[in-house]
């Protein structure tokens, strides 16, 4: 095992996360054209490009036919009375 470097990692939230507030994206995918496009999970990313990369690397359990990411804030929940129908985390 290599020795730890002397300097601890520094984290620049501007550079690494694109800001101080995390942004979330929902990930949808389908395995074949017959399959439903389904919610498979979500990722945190500073921008659309990195969201695509993270979705692709994290949800790589299948060779998907189609995958897309949607900013969580773009999703408008349709509510029935008090019942929440918002997209759930995973």
């Amino acid at each position, binding site marked *: *095992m*290599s020795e*730890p*470097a*002397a*300097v*601890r*990692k520094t*984290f620049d*939230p501007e*550079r*690494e*996360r694109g800001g101080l507030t*995390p942004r*979330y994206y929902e990930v949808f995918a389908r395995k074949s054209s017959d399959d439903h496009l389904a919610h*498979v*999970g*979500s*990722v*945190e990313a500073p921008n659309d490009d990195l969201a695509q990369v*993270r979705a692709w*690397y*994290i*949800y*790589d*359990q299948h060779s998907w036919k189609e995958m897309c990411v949607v900013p969580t804030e773009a999703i408008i929940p349709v509510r029935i009375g008090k019942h*929440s129908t918002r997209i*759930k*985390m*995973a």
Partner: protein
Amino acid sequence: MTQVMDRADDARERALRQRVKAGYQLEDPSEMTPRYRDVLVNTMHIAADLEVVTLPTYSPAIRTSPTLDDKIAIASACQDELGHAQVMYRLLEEFGYDTQSFLFERDPQEWRTFQMLEFPHEDYIESVVSMCYGDRAGYITTVDLEENCSFAPFARSLRKVNFEETFHIGHGERWVRFFWNLNEKSRKRVQQAVEFYFPLCAAWFGVPDEMKKRTDQLAYKIRGASNDEMRQKWLSQVVPFSESLGIRVPAHYDEESGKFVLDYEPPIYLDEKTRTWDYDRQITWEEQFKIWKKGSRHKVPSITRLHHEVYGEDLW
């Protein structure tokens, strides 16, 4: 191993326990009671830590893997595990966790790791033995969560996790079989690695049921099976597998009770330096808890290494 704060057992808590017992699944944190939230978050917190510590545990074997394929297999398993951690971080952020400080700024001693994942692998054989026996233990706990957890988003997130874990177990089984049959030297090494891992994996499931004081995990249906039930499931898979090859393990099937039983009475003494168990030297549960809490001598260096590894622009 759970540490749940003592919370009042009011009518709301009892009502929620009844609802989840009847099969109700929660979709949103707003539906939770304080006790439910505590035990769920605690479970996910430990699960996230356990995914991450597979990295310093498995990664040393990348260097010593015999072929490029083996190196890729280990690296790919590490990537899977970090993917699982990311899924859990995403869930934990809904409960106020900050991933950056959770992963990179928390004192290594504070991490909630299990002894089974606290010993960096010395070679590839140790890695495949660990996948065959240890990943299977992990898989049994995460499958139980996927099938039973009353917090639906967590249960759903484990579909991917469990799907990938089957590859690790399959990989472990194939290569354990290969090294067992390769030559005398590799067979000896497989036997030695199994002897080290077997009691660690059996202990993965925690203390015997009769000793368990906090039962909120089961009462709130965060998981479905008890420690002993899951341990029994693990034994029922690994004992026949080992016996079919001729690998000696300290457990057997007991005809009388119809159950698999350990040949020793845990907890027993582990010499960390030589990685050998002294089956004749029992320790007390108090001593065992102390050892688990402190972690192996590799725990802090392994997590410190995660904290200091160069990345981003610094890497170039």
